């Protein structure tokens, strides 16, 4: 490797050309490797991204029979892919909410003794209009509409 020895007299222009050639080859090699790595990791990144699943979009579900839920009690029912909380406040009044706590997505429950909705994860409470009473939830629960169709309770999205 004579070209690396400083004692060897080389014309100035030749050193410059040699340096340029080296730099160019290094860039080509590095660029080629970088480009090929990108082409390997792009499919991997796309693979890691989970495909969109068709969400069962539901506007209305039958939540059970009137006589199955006694006054001052609540139960969790399926509303599409998400849980909903159905509350029978008294003989005639019904309420329904999305059962997903607005704090960190836990599923809430009805507390019969205190007549409020409670989230066990971080002690958040909501009243029977879905408004936050205490605890960390930042927003009220989304309220759903309840209709009685004969002796069947039907929950639907509010419009």
């Amino acid at each position: 490797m004579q070209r690396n020895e400083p004692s060897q007299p080389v014309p100035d222009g030749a050193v410059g050309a040699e340096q340029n050639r080296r730099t160019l080859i290094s860039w080509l090699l590095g660029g080629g490797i970088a480009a090929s790595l990108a082409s390997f990791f792009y499919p991997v990144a796309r693979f890691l991204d989970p495909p969109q699943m068709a969400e069962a979009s539901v506007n209305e579900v039958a939540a059970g029979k009137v006589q199955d839920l006694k006054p001052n009690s609540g139960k969790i029912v399926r509303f599409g892919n998400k849980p909903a909380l159905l509350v029978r406040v008294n003989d005639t009044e019904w309420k329904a909410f999305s059962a997903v706590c607005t704090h960190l997505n836990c599923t809430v429950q009805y507390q019969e003794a205190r007549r409020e909705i409670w989230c066990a994860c971080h002690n958040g409470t909501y009243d029977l209009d879905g408004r936050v009473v205490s605890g960390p939830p930042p927003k009220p629960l989304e309220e759903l509409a309840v209709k009685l169709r004969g002796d069947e309770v039907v929950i639907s999205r509010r419009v």
Partner: protein
Amino acid sequence: MSVKELRARTFDWFDERLGLREGRDLLDHKVVPVHAGTTWYYFGGITLFLLAVQLGTGILLLLYYRPSVAEAFDSVRFIMTRVEFGWLIRSIHSWSANLLIFAAFVHMFSVVFTHAYRRPRELTWLTGIVLLGLMLGFGFSGYLLPWNQISYFATKVGTDVAATMPFAGPALARFLRGGEDVGAATLTRFFAFHVAVLPMLTFAFVGVHLLLVQKAGMSTPSGISPARLAQMKFFPSFFLRELMVWYGVLAILGTLAAIFPWELGQKADPFSSAPAGIRPEWYFLAQFYTLKLIPSHVWFMEGELLGLAGFGLLAAVWVTLPFWAKGREGEGRTRLATGVGVFLVCYLFAFTILGYLK
């Protein structure tokens, strides 16, 4: 502080704690002999590279695969049809598995024909044989995981062959199947073998194998005097060449996976007849065809058993190769080893092709 200074300081910091200089010196002094057979040195590296591909793509497949009879087939179909590039990842995993076993065979036979198994490399040979067995185990267990017709029946036959072994056979088959028959328990077991047991053993044995290669240095073929050989530095000269070989292998792998995507077939149905033309993966074909040829009874022995005894004998001869293929001075009965090697290559080659055609 200049960039150069910063680099030197960072290196020193890590060197003080990790001993980087020792590693660098080791790498600096590692050399590869240059001769007519140098090409064969690349196949160990190719096998290792394909193993890395298997590890990477295998982890990716694990993100979507579900190991249960009810969901396995559908989850693989989901990977191939719904997940972006899922077909490519699965196809690469299957093709790479096959190329890996092929590369391992080439690596093994190159070791035989260059007589690299000689003293002091007997343990390198033995760990290599164990690794080949592990790779075949990966192939056999991985084959069942998509839970399709072909793999279901191949596993039935494969575990049945194990059951015909004298003494331990039935117990071994029961252990492999997790019961009397191939079913849900088998899938769970094969999954556990494929993603936990075999990888752990493989890591250990690859580690020891590489350590032994490092310890003894590269072998030179018998008949070439090491003193007169030219050498090249492992790093960067050999390493960069190996890297280019890996790029080439990856190109072949990508092409095969893209042009001939691995098929999924039909979901396994235990209450249907075995499909016509069923046969195992190519690396089990020679044995499969041999067993087909042997009549059901030979003299007092069951044919199946005779075949297995033959394979067992052949395997024992092969595994102990470094111990019998040597003379009194340890210089090696190279011709005998070459003869056995040629015989085995011819047998495997011919019977694999016959098994494929018939």
